[in-house]
């Protein structure tokens, strides 16, 4: 965006050719990457799927929404939506403040202690999930918070923190320190200059971290499946698999469920994705 092509010396026709090639490449890429989603939609709308399984689009008299009615007729589907929203929202509420704080500290104060803590954070990223599931299950059942969304919030937080802290640290690195120092001299103090000067400037970075976090916590499956034992407490990611077990070869219903379960996040992502690129480019990717 900031960088503009400047092909003044390039002949007109070769510019046209390169533009046509760009469009062709984009269309080819999107066709490849979106075809599984297209197929999901096509299967979900086809009420007589096995009569014409290879057709690119079902004939008009086979198209219907009965699969979608089946999905929303299932008990607990509304609970799954609410649980997913609740877990994602709470994860954002917990993780954003603490990873912003840690990212700022790592950016502005780089000494033995902070480097040790960042090593610890990176270690958290390496631990195999299969390892954590068992001890955490034991721990959560001892405290008595099994089936409580709090366990998922805790688990999601730990797994998202390394990336968020890295992203925000890079973002703070790119912010000039002069403003902060001036504010500090003017009597804002260390905390005041952080809260009133730096934090508002860091909003694009925070939005980027929030996008990443929403995707991670909406998608988490292994912990949700292990810690949430009652169908009422499941999230959509777990519920989708339960649908598969219940409907087996009934692809019509499974496809409809898959589509409607991913919709809220796709809408959210459509609005937030540009912040992700902006937030990352401002700082983190400079290393």
């Amino acid at each position, binding site marked *: 965006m*900031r*960088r*503009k092509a400047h092909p003044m010396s390039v002949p007109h026709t070769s510019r046209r050719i390169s*533009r046509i090639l*760009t469009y062709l490449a*984009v269309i080819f*890429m*999107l066709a490849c*990457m979106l*075809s*599984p989603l297209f*197929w999901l939609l096509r*299967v979900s709308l086809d009420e007589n799927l*096995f009569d014409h*399984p290879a057709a690119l689009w079902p004939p008009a008299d086979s198209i219907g929404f009965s699969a979608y009615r089946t999905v929303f007729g299932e008990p607990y589907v509304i609970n799954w939506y609410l649980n997913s929203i609740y877990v994602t929202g709470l994860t954002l509420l917990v993780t954003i403040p*603490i990873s912003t*704080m*840690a990212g700022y500290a790592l950016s*502005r*104060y780089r*000494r033995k*202690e*902070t480097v040790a*803590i*960042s090593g*610890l*954070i990176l*270690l958290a*990223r*390496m631990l*195999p*999930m*299969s*390892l*954590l599931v*068992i001890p955490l299950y*034991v*721990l959560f059942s001892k405290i008595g918070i099994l089936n409580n969304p709090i366990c998922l919030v*805790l688990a999601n*937080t730990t797994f998202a*923190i390394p990336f968020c802290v890295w992203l925000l640290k890079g973002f703070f690195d790119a912010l000039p320190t002069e403003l902060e120092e001036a504010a500090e001299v003017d009597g804002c103090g*260390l*905390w005041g200059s952080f809260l009133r000067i730096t934090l508002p400037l860091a909003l694009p970075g925070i939005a980027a971290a929030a996008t990443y976090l*929403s995707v991670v916590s909406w*998608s988490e499956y*292994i912990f949700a499946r292990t810690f949430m034992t009652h169908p009422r407490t499941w999230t959509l*990611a777990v519920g*989708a698999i339960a649908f598969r077990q219940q409907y087996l070869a009934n692809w019509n219903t499974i496809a409809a469920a*898959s589509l409607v*379960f*991913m919709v809220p*996040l796709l809408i959210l992502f459509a609005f937030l*994705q540009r912040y*992700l*690129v902006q937030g*990352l*480019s401002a700082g*983190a*990717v400079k*290393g």
Partner: protein
Amino acid sequence: MQHTQRLTRSGQKRLMALMLMLPTAAITLFIVGYPTYVIIQGSLHDARILRLSYDSPLTLENYVRFFSNWRFLKPLIATLIYTTNVTAFTCLIGLGSALLLNRSFVGRAIARGLALLPWPIPMSIVALMTLLVTDPSVGILNHALTRMGLFARPESWVSSPSLAMIAVSLASIWKGYPFFTIILLAGLQAIPIHLYEAAHIDGADAWQRLRHITLPSLRPVIKIGILLQMLWLIKDFTLLLIVTNGGPGGTTETLGLHVYRNAFEFFRMDYAAAAGVMVLLLALILSILVLRNTEI
């Protein structure tokens, strides 16, 4: 006088930094420290169930089991094949799509949004889509390949020893490439414009600009991306668990899934713990290799 004032200010700054780090450090320690302790304990005892303390004596039996009869070799090979292939292709496709989507053309914002679409889809739903797309009777992949004449008849991908790994890898690449697109798009936008202007004056063509400016500038981002992606693939087994559960014949059982199945299917928690410690070591070695000269 001035000296002491500076000291107190740096002391204040230090205190503030530690206070800001405290919540992150506490949560990470709580979620990571306790389980790690429990797992290392469990891996050194004869224990079907993990506990905080044991009466039985310490033993290396579980580690011996992991290495005897080359038991670790099959999951290790599956992990290497899966991780390297998926990382290589996600990185290449991500790079290609980022370069493409960084050009200016009408409708670029929409194209970007659509190209990134697989990323926010939950892994469990990607797994369902994999089963659907590779299904012998209703899968689009089978229809397309038979129509092109590459397949004689539709195949059941997930139960075929040669196709199962390809099916899960394709799904993982599809879900994973937008992550690279995003960070590389961000990286491209962070490259200072004057580098390209200088190259233009020197008469560099598009290929030379890519080789000598774009790729070297993206190097640190690609490095971090590859590390994060590989660690993620070693650790996460959601897709494999749902699509193949390690089958057929263990060809898609990566180390992460190997640990999980031993713990929850065969109830050998102690062995699973020992295998898990080895996975952690593998991830550590990998990170050290990649991050040797980088500062995080």
